[in-house]
């Protein structure tokens, strides 16, 4: 005979303002199986939890229903209290009368009635709850880091330095990411490569880190502590174990007109290439889409003839590597919005309208102009530059309502770098607001304005067009009675919006993590779980989650590394016991369940007699792999599979009691 305790929470006034909690407690006390019911101001507080613990002992309770907030909020809290009271924690369920009732309806009898219905439903469920015990699973103490930008590098180094193995998968031929493209970094103006490249070398030399460049994640299965990942190693066409990185091959390559991604299209590269001189690994790959050997069917072959190390092999194919990891850090970074997005600014039409990344390359000592800021069209040094902040960002009409966060700062930096190199030049910045909230950030912007004489104009730019070799920037100064401003500029730099990596949606689907409508990955909780995802064991670092600058990216990468290290600090971890179980006496062995299981958790079991002769087959569930979705339960023709915690009995009990019918 069940003896259930029902505890109604006021949640301060969050529940009691619209629900008559006393009445709910009174009605609950008369429900079948209820031995005790009460109400209290804050059930989640320490005295509230004590009430549960005391009542379990005093009334010899066999089940608990806490009618309060969402179980997503406090289920763990109350299950812990239930365990402290001396009964199995899985005999406790929460009735959600706050998010699903008191907060969404006005004060009325109907609202109280709804709360009573919800409580009754959960009482009916708890009457059918069984004690469950967490499942212990081993933890594979190897981490996978997806992406080798600054976020991935930082996370990998932190995890590796804690003594765990790390595997980095990077799509490009080199690690380094966007940070390696930057000239100087705000607010200190130290050279980006100078601080990044030592880290890249550290990664390549670390005994705990395995680096796979020119590789992508193909598929992911498994669960926290035990992920199975298939990595696609794209054919490099160069055997890196033989290659010395001498560079003769790319000097000989006749295909020299391929837009260079590293220089943001401002220069060209060859078909066999390393992305930049400090690349890690500093060994080339062949870009097959642009290589004459592959596009013209075996013609050319110059690089192979040149290579003394005999490292070039046109026959290599994509290879697949299966790895087992315990945690995954996603650090896939961002993209910038491009070309046809700004027809009114002539981006893509006028060569001298460029984006922020292209300006970085112009200002960089390793860039196509060796750090001299020249116009892409004729190579002249511009006398007037206009910077347009918020190009696409915070613009609902363009579909990007968020702030790209880094543009205010890098625009100030760009204007400053230009002024430092061209003292006589004029720099103008069109802006909406200056958002410089970071350590030393506002001071940095003030320096650009006050010491380097950058002209800041508050207003938007409506149009940019070319006239007599000049770019006419038509804007408005909203601090001067919306007076129109026309500037004849030599070059325009658009701070284009930061957008999610274009492959982020497909990666999120492989990882089974959520993403927002802009395809940035979603964190498990916006405040309290900023680096975890809804899928346990998968962490986020850097701009794959939202636009962010380098200090924030590094902090977040270290945070996700510390979460990973905490996970690896135990040899095994316990998992929720909500897994499916087969009644192999009834099971007919049709194995329909096996076909629908997304985790390949169902095996075919041989049922033998005492002499070892096979009598028949039945399904068998590997509880280490089962995640408890219950698809097999709904699929089973004769109800031979049940899901612990959401059993057929429990669910039918809920439906029947909700409609006030005996069951």
């Amino acid at each position, binding site marked *: 005979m069940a003896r259930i305790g029902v505890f109604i929470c006021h949640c301060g006034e969050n529940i009691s303002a619209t629900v008559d909690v006393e009445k709910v407690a009174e009605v609950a006390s008369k429900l079948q199986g209820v031995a005790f019911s009460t109400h209290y101001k804050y059930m989640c507080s320490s005295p509230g939890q004590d009430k549960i613990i005391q009542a379990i002992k005093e009334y010899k309770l066999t089940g608990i229903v806490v009618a309060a907030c*969402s*179980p*997503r909020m406090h289920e763990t809290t109350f299950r812990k209290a239930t365990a402290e009271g001396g009964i199995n924690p899985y005999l406790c369920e929460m009735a*959600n009368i*706050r*998010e*699903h*009732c008191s*907060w*969404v*309806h*006005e004060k*009325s009898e*109907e*609202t109280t009635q*709804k709360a009573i*219905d*919800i409580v009754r*439903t959960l009482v009916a469920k708890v009457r059918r709850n069984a004690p469950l015990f967490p499942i212990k699973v081993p933890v594979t103490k190897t981490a996978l880091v997806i992406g080798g930008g600054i976020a991935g590098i930082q996370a990998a180094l932190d995890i590796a330095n804690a003594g765990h193995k790390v595997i980095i998968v990077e799509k490009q031929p080199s690690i380094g990411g966007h940070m390696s493209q930057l000239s100087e970094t705000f607010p200190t103006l130290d050279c980006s490569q100078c601080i990044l490249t030592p880290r890249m070398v550290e990664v390549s030399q670390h005994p705990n880190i395995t680096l796979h460049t020119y590789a992508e994640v193909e598929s992911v299965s498994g669960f926290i502590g035990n992920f199975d990942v298939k990595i696609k190693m794209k054919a490099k066409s160069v055997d890196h174990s033989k290659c010395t990185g001498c560079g003769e091959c790319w000097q000989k390559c006749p295909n020299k007109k391929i837009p260079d991604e590293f220089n943001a299209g401002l220069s060209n590269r060859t078909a066999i290439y390393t992305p930049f001189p400090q690349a890690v690994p500093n060994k080339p790959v062949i870009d097959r889409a642009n290589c004459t050997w592959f596009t013209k069917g075996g013609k050319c072959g110059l690089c192979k003839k040149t290579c003394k190390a005999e490292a070039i092999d046109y026959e290599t194919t994509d290879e697949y590597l299966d790895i087992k990891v315990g945690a995954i850090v996603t650090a896939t970074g961002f993209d910038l919005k491009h070309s046809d997005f700004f027809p009114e600014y002539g981006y893509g039409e006028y060569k001298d309208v460029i984006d922020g990344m292209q300006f970085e390359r112009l200002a960089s000592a390793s860039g196509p102009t060796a750090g001299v800021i020249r116009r892409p069209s004729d190579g002249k040094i511009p006398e007037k530059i206009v910077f347009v902040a918020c190009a696409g960002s915070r613009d609902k009409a363009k579909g990007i309502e968020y702030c790209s966060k880094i543009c205010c700062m890098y625009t100030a930096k760009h204007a400053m770098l230009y002024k430092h190199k061209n003292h006589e030049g004029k720099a103008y910045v069109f802006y909406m607001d200056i958002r410089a909230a970071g350590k030393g950030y506002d001071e940095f912007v003030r320096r650009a304005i006050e010491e380097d004489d950058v002209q800041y104009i508050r207003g938007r730019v409506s149009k940019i067009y070319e006239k007599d070799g000049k770019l006419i920037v038509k804007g408005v100064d909203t601090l001067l009675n919306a007076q129109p401003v026309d500037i004849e500029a030599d070059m325009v730099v658009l701070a284009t919006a930061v957008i999610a990596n274009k492959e982020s949606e497909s990666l999120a*689907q492989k990882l*089974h993590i*959520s993403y*927002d*409508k802009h395809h940035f990955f*979603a964190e498990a909780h916006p405040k309290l779980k900023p680096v975890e995802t*809804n*899928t346990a064991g998968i962490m986020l670092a850097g701009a794959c989650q939202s636009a962010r600058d380098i200090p924030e990216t590094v902090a977040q990468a270290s945070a996700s590394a510390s979460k990973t290290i905490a996970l690896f600090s135990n040899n095994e971890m316990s998992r929720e016991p*909500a897994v499916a179980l087969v009644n192999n006496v009834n099971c007919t062995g049709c194995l329909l369940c096996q076909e*629908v299981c*997304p*985790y390949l958790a169902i095996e075919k079991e041989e049922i033998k007699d005492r002499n070892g002769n096979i009598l028949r087959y039945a399904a068998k569930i590997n509880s280490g792999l089962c*995640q*408890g*979705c*219950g*698809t097999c*339960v*709904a*699929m089973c023709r004769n109800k031979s599979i049940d*899901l612990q*915690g*959401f059993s*057929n009995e429990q*669910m*039918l009990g*809920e*439906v*029947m009691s*909700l*409609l*006030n*019918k005996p069951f």
Partner: protein
Amino acid sequence: MSQFEPKIVAFVCNWCTYAGADLAGTSRAKYASNVRIIRFPCTGRIDFMLLMKAFQNGTDGIIVSGCHPNDCHYTSGNFHARRRWMVFRSLIDFMGFDTERITFSWVSAAEGAKWADLVNEVTEKVRALGPFTEFKNIDYNSFNQLDNGAIAK
């Protein structure tokens, strides 16, 4: 006469729609109080015979809702639910059951407002359809006489 207040049961998944309904709560969206939520781990877990049980016992309308396609926490449970719904819908339609009484929807954890709108819409729709009475009055005793109660059990 006061207007008819339909009883509506929502079968929702834990990860998307349940969380979406939580978000409707935290954002204090107001919606019709006719709906009662039953939490499943996944829409793939929902045995559609439970829907029939609910109708048999007095519900007037049902919502089944889970994660959007490709967003399932368990990879593919929502696809199985969708297929099952397609088959189930044509079966009950053939039997003369008004399929308008069941609404199949996707509501993500970020769509609190969509959840509130969905509940309001379904409540209005079912209110217009009126109480569900068609299949409620099966006389189990006559079955018992026919085959010693095997069907009724």
